[in-house]
């Protein structure tokens, strides 16, 4: 039983990382209506930017570095949208083209990371934390901070969507872009801001993944991608709250499953859930009408 | 309503329904786009489906062609219950449709657009491709001949080797209709076949629709232009707020106060001045 609760605790950590990643992906998908297949590499690049700030030039605290690295990722995402993806999406009506471009971007970014930092595993410059006993859980201080960051971020996203003008514009565009445009929403501005948020959250997710896993490699984001997809599809593609719920379910399922099966396959459990979702509830648990 | 099950009556001249639907409903996010539409489409006639914007006309066509599933209600094509059938199976029974905004098979040539239309082709089976090449050749030759004939009629013959995406708006409209004709439909649903084309072309399309009728094709068309409806349609179904308001001849409906109030009033008066 204690084994179960231990895993449950790890599951909450994974869920926290996953929630940041999944919400970042969903925000952008809701607005642009295509999947960013380079998202995993956005995460990895964010993790490395943090690493650069934290361990290579400034040697400053990991959490401060994380903020800097993530914001840089946000700026990067805006640039990618402005100079690459948005022109393709506007020019070609078929979504094939822009999807292939994001796929290609993924390959370019991955190899860029390899070219700059090599294939060796890197670790952040941070203190080794004592493991704390909290109820039945066994967690480090850093893992607790990651969970706190995730929860705060989810609340912020919720408040933004429900109360701010930007959030309302985003929801309107997610429902119907053309209609939103005719009601006077500056769709370009909203798109830019969304890419910034999506990039920042990818950077955050990549960094906290590196912190909780203890290391980063150029391929770590890419291999995490299908877990994010599983969370997003389980929650219903395009639904922000669905992404949060999907992240929690997938995060818990993958870690708790490690009690029962070989931990090497724990992430594959996410794929099994993905397939089951497709078979029995293809629109996800919280489907948005018209998005499937 | 079920008169088509009685061939004797049919022969006596009572309209036989090729399509009948009852109590169709469809809601989008709590809004009832179609709300109990019930009507028959008489065989061998041209029927217009009219109604104010948002009456649910296109949704009805989408349901009838299987592109959407209705929330409730039933529909029959001939004597077959096709409620909630998959759209390609409905098409194979002989129900063809066009789309409000023409949808050409853009990368195919004009001729290929038509050649793709026949519902079941021997040449679509891998076995036949490799083991019955002569059957394929014969079938293809027949299809090309027929397609050529149709393209001539529709004035698209010179464009046969052009990619469909290169056509003008009016040409795309014609292509879409001729593609449907190529599939030899028994019932042809036309979603605003004359919207957005010039007056000369409107007349031509009207002629083609009458041609179809002469060849025994039943037509159900969504149309806003009541002049056209008056000229070529035998029968009118009025849809308002997702319900069937009335059916009958346009001239009779003009005197129906309900219809006039819901939709027709001004338009009819404007139309009669023509």
């Amino acid at each position: 039983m204690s084994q179960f609760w231990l895993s449950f605790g790890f599951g909450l950590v994974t869920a926290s990382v996953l929630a940041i990643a999944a919400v970042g992906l969903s925000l952008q998908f809701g607005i642009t209506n295509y999947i960013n297949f380079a998202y995993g590499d956005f995460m990895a690049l964010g993790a490395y930017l943090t690493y650069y700030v934290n361990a290579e030039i400034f040697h400053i605290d990991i959490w401060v570095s994380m903020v800097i690295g993530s914001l840089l990722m946000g700026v990067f995402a805006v640039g990618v949208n402005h100079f690459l993806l948005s022109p393709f999406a506007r020019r070609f009506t078929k979504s094939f083209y822009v999807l292939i471009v994001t796929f290609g971007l993924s390959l370019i970014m991955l190899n860029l990371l390899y070219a700059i930092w090599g294939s060796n595993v890197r670790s952040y410059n941070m203190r080794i934390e004592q493991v704390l006993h909290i109820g039945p859980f066994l967690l480090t201080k850093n893992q607790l901070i990651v969970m706190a960051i995730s929860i705060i971020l989810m609340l912020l996203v919720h408040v933004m969507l429900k109360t701010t003008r930007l959030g309302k514009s985003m929801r309107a565009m997610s429902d119907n872009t053309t209609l939103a445009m005719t009601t006077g929403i500056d769709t370009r501005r909203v798109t830019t801001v969304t890419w910034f948020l999506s990039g920042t959250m990818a950077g955050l997710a990549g960094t906290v993944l590196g912190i909780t896993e203890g290391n980063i490699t150029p391929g770590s984001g890419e291999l995490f991608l299908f877990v994010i997809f599983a969370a997003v599809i389980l929650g219903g593609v395009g639904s922000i709250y669905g992404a949060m719920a999907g992240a929690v379910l997938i995060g818990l399922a993958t870690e708790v499953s490690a009690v029962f099966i070989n931990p090497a396959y724990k992430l594959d459990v996410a794929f099994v859930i993905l397939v089951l979702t497709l078979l029995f509830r293809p629109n996800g648990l919280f489907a948005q009408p018209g998005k499937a | 309503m079920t008169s088509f099950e009685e061939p004797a009556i049919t022969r006596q001249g009572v309209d036989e329904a090729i399509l009948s639907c009852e109590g169709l409903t469809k809601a989008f996010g709590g809004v009832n786009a179609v709300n109990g539409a019930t009507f028959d489409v008489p065989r061998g006639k041209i029927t217009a489906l009219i109604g104010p914007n948002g009456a649910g006309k296109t949704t009805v066509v989408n349901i009838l062609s299987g592109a959407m599933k209705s929330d409730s209600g039933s529909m029959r094509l001939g004597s077959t219950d096709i409620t909630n059938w998959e759209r390609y199976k409905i098409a194979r029974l002989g129900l063809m449709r066009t789309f409000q905004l023409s949808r050409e098979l853009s990368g195919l040539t004009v001729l290929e657009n038509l050649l793709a239309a026949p519902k079941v082709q021997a040449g679509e089976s891998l076995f036949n491709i490799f083991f019955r090449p002569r059957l394929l050749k014969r079938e293809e030759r027949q299809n090309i001949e027929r397609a050529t004939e149709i393209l001539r009629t529709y004035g698209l013959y010179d464009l046969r080797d052009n990619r469909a995406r290169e056509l003008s708006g009016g040409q795309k409209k014609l292509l879409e209709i001729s593609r449907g004709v190529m599939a030899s439909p028994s019932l042809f649903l036309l979603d605003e076949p004359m919207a957005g084309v010039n007056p000369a072309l409107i007349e031509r399309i009207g002629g083609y629709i009458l041609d179809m009728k002469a060849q025994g094709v039943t037509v159900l068309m969504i149309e806003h232009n009541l002049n056209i409806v008056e000229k070529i349609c035998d029968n009118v179904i009025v849809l308002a707020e997702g319900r069937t308001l009335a059916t009958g001849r346009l001239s009779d409906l003009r005197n129906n106060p309900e219809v006039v109030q819901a939709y027709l009033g001004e338009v009819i008066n404007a139309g009669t001045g023509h």
Partner: protein
Amino acid sequence: MSAFWYYVFTLVFFLFDYFILAMGLNIQYGETGILNFAYIAFVALGAYVTGAVSMPNSVGTGQQYIFGWGIPFPFNLIMGGVAAMVLAFVVALITLRRLRTDYLAMVLISLSLVFYDIVNNYVRLFNGADGLYNVPEPMSGVFHLTLNAFVPFFALVTGAVALILWGVMSRITRSPLGRTFRAIRDDPDVAAALGKGVFRYQLTSMLIGSFYAGVGGGLLIQFGGSFNPTAWLPGETFVVFAVIIVGGVGNNVGLLMGALLVETLLIHLPAFLPNIPGHPGLIEYIDTMVVGVVLMLMLWFRPQGVVPERLRRFPQPAGELANRDGHSVAPPEQSHYVAAITTDDSEPKDAQ
């Protein structure tokens, strides 16, 4: 045989093999519009199965793998192709019926990553991260070739296989079946409205393409004698996409061209460059980035590829042959009803 010819025939092998792989992906993506981001997983399965069925029983080989039946060439290759088809069948049943293009791509790329994870971790399947090695040389019992003779020999065998598969593929793409595939690619809703069972045709296309993927993979493992998981990360799928997009989607000659330009010149030729001292692998990384950039530039400036999809013209019916210039001069036939409703005498030629 000098080292030079050894390299040349290595390039020739990759040219033909990627031509086969490109034909398989082209029928799925280029002809039918299925964005198969898991393509390389089908290639890998074909490679592993081809290898594992042709190797002797695993006991005592120092490797762990299933099968081990000692099946000779070319039957092992066919089994590799069929294995890829079986995977495609299962995947198609789960995904094709319900998903929009980009969700399908999401699921497929996930599948590719998971398959990778499983093969890597579950050592008893295909020897885990070490991959299969010492795969028997095809037809070694017949010819007893040295390594230097084997390379040109097998490059030509692959060329012959590619030629056969090319013949089969162009027969399919020229047929009404190919036309229906392209109709689905252009607009699945219209195809369905014309009575085409879209799912059935997409499934057919997936199966055909996967067979090509499996055979291409089988040839890879037979050529190199080994195959391990690093050979089929998702990036490799992208290379095949680059081949067909650069060469020309929907044109078999274009695919051969794409295989030459991308696989042979861009990917394999730089592999012969000496490494930059102190930066192992740097050339390869830069090279892969170049492939990505080239593909984006192609998509933007020449989306139809180097050799575009050709217009499929048909011989005109007999009556028309007399008309040498290929254009009918007659105006469209007037419907005899038109006169009845025509109010003005406007020209029958249609306009915007």
